């Protein structure tokens, strides 16, 4: 089996599984006052410190959550509600290429909570410019509650210059949230140096556990809780801490960050060979997003493991099915609840037409990827594309 869907989820590191298995055997609610509770609390706090150290944050800034979606919702809704309550700000400035966890939270606030939404323009690779952000803020700086711009796009892999964007917003005193789910462990993420006020990350994209994530929330930023209860995490997030998951997350983040530079170089080389190989065999294939050698703020302008390609005349779901039958697993973009694929909102925001959006596949490499994975894909892709083109023409004829 050739797994080329690491951006969806990546295999758990053995060290993570081992640490979690050990912790599953230990009793103790981290909020309890007795010895078992103190023991669990120690695991949680040591994990918090390890993650903070790996990502350039202070431990007090970490809020453990159930993952990326909760962190995004807590940041977007929580900060919006808080800023609306304190000084009547109602405007959200958002990149249109955000993950649905941000996008749908923003649209929900617009529909039900009176939020006004300013969608930022992007370039053809999906990147937001400093100038565009500044112009958008200047339309009415005093009304902006929050800016949310992802660190790196989950579909096409385009990296934003988050530090430069945060600098612009800081000049206006507006908090910035960034969804860094795809970036942590792949790009050099330093929360403090980036200047962002809130940052979303999750475990299962970097070899950690499912259902465990963090919202880094500056201690000077207040957020209204989504759920109310024991207030375990700074009174912003309630719920008994999942000690095994927290410990697994810390092990995963620590390992991913420690091995980041070496791994990023290695998977970027594999990705480049994948893209070159596909385009040599299928000249009409289009690489969506930033070029593979794109540079942002001195680092990669595209996620090292991301190859997002459109195959003219094909339907993405036909390609996916044909590849799956040949043991190659990839994605058409973002999965929908009913399994019905819709043209990607990211590609549409980048100005792609519906045909290009429908005919796209995302191959994403990760820590277990090998040369053999790329070889396998390059071996079968010409035949698969030819078949899918035939099927695509069948659809077009009707």
């Amino acid at each position: 089996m050739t797994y080329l869907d690491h951006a969806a989820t990546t295999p758990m590191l053995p060290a993570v599984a081992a640490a979690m298995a050990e912790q599953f055997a230990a009793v103790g609610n981290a909020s309890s006052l007795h010895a078992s509770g103190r023991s669990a609390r120690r695991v949680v706090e040591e994990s918090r410190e390890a993650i903070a150290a790996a990502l350039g944050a202070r431990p007090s800034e970490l809020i453990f959550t159930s993952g990326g979606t909760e962190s995004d919702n807590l940041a977007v809704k929580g900060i919006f509600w808080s800023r609306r309550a304190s000084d009547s700000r109602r405007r959200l400035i958002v990149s249109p290429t955000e993950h649905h966890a941000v996008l749908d939270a923003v649209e929900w606030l617009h529909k039900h909570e009176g939020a006004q939404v300013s969608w930022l323009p992007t370039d053809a690779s999906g990147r937001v410019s400093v100038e565009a952000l500044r112009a958008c803020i200047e339309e009415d700086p005093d009304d902006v509650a929050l800016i949310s711009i992802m660190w790196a796009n989950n579909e096409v892999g385009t990296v934003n210059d988050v530090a430069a964007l945060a600098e612009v917003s800081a000049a206006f005193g507006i908090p910035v949230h960034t969804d860094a789910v795809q970036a942590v462990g792949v790009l050099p993420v330093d929360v403090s140096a980036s200047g962002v006020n809130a940052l979303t990350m999750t475990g299962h994209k970097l070899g950690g556990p499912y259902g465990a994530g963090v919202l880094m929330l500056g201690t000077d930023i207040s957020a209204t809780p989504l759920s109310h209860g024991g207030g375990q995490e700074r009174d912003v997030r309630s719920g008994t801490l999942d000690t095994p998951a927290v410990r697994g997350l810390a092990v995963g983040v620590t390992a991913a960050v420690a091995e980041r530079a070496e791994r990023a170089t290695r998977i970027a080389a594999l990705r480049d060979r994948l893209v070159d190989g596909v385009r040599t065999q299928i000249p009409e294939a289009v690489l969506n997003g930033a070029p593979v050698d794109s540079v942002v703020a001195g680092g990669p302008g595209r996620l090292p493991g991301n190859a997002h390609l459109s195959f003219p005349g094909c339907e993405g779901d036909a390609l996916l099915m044909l590849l799956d039958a040949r043991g190659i697993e990839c994605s058409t973009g973002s999965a929908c609840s009913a399994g019905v694929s819709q043209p990607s909102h990211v590609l549409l925001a980048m100005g792609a037409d519906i045909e290009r959006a429908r005919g796209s596949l995302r191959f994403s490499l990760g820590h277990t990827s090998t040369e053999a994975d790329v070889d396998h894909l390059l071996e079968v892709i010409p035949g698969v594309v030819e078949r899918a083109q035939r099927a695509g023409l069948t659809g077009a004829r009707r």
Partner: protein
Amino acid sequence: MNVIAAMSGGVDSAVAAALMVDAGHQVTGIHLALASTPDASRTGSRGCCTVEDANDARRVADALAIPFYIWDMAEQFRAEVVDDFVAQYAAGRTPNPCVRCNEQIKFAAVLDRALALGFDAVVTGHHARLEGGTLRRSVDVAKDQSYVLATLTQRQLGLAVFPLGVMTKDEVRREAARRGLLVANKPDSHDICFIADGNTRGFLGRHLGNPTGDIVDDATGTVVGTHDGAHGYTVGQRRGLNLGVPAADGKPRYVLSLSVADNTVRVGPGEALEIGSIRTGQPVWHTGIVPGEPFDCTVQLRAHGLTSRATVTPYEASALIVLDQPQRGIAAGQTAVLYGGSGAETVLGAARIEAADRVLPKVSPGQILG
């Protein structure tokens, strides 16, 4: 063979797929997403497009250890089935959307896509026997679905597999239970899958409006009532007419015809519903050739309808069907399916009903068709 199994989430298609796996075929399960909007497949509507049905189909595929995908055919379904359904009613006809879906979606759009992707055939859980291109009724006559498959061409049938034709519905359910499939006791689907609440009249009203018109006595031309949209009536309907003027003979009156041009519903006595002959559109002949001579056979004029003996005169692009015994409630837009052979269970041909003529003195075909 390398086949696509269309899996609705019901018990029939589940067992059909299972039997193909048993027979050693390479089976890929697909579920058709047919609801028009992505949201509709999320909200729980009845029929064949709900998330629950897709999940049921997926769980069956898991149990059979076959790959499973959702194919989004919503656009084609809307254009070919739903829009056609509305247009047919607007034209005063009574369509059968299941026939249309088989003709245009399952054994056209789905089949063509499957072939292009390298599959050899499409498997469904229809209750009908298909051997060597010959379509026959299911052994379970009460569940037989040959009627809704009969207008498929020989090419389409040649690329279809119906593994359930030799089983009764009870046997299918027992087979599902024996395999531990969670859909073994799932109720049969009814109604029209894209009309979630089962209210066809309301659905048509939303698409066609409810223009008020006259209910007219067919014999005298007198206006005897009003209606809010001719599409809300069915030929043969007696209840719900709310006629203000009683019939001269005191007998109940029935809907005889719907006239779209002047939005008029025509009513009359039951005897006037008796149909003696039918003209059809282009028939599909399952013998592969257009029969040269008039012939006698058994004809079925509605899904789940009664059959009657008839004489069929084939023409190049039509047929005339003269019924031995007149029948009531025959509507243009339905399908006439001709059965013959032993037990009258072999489909000889089928065609859409274009016009139904009341009982008249028997005339020669030439007079009617000009």
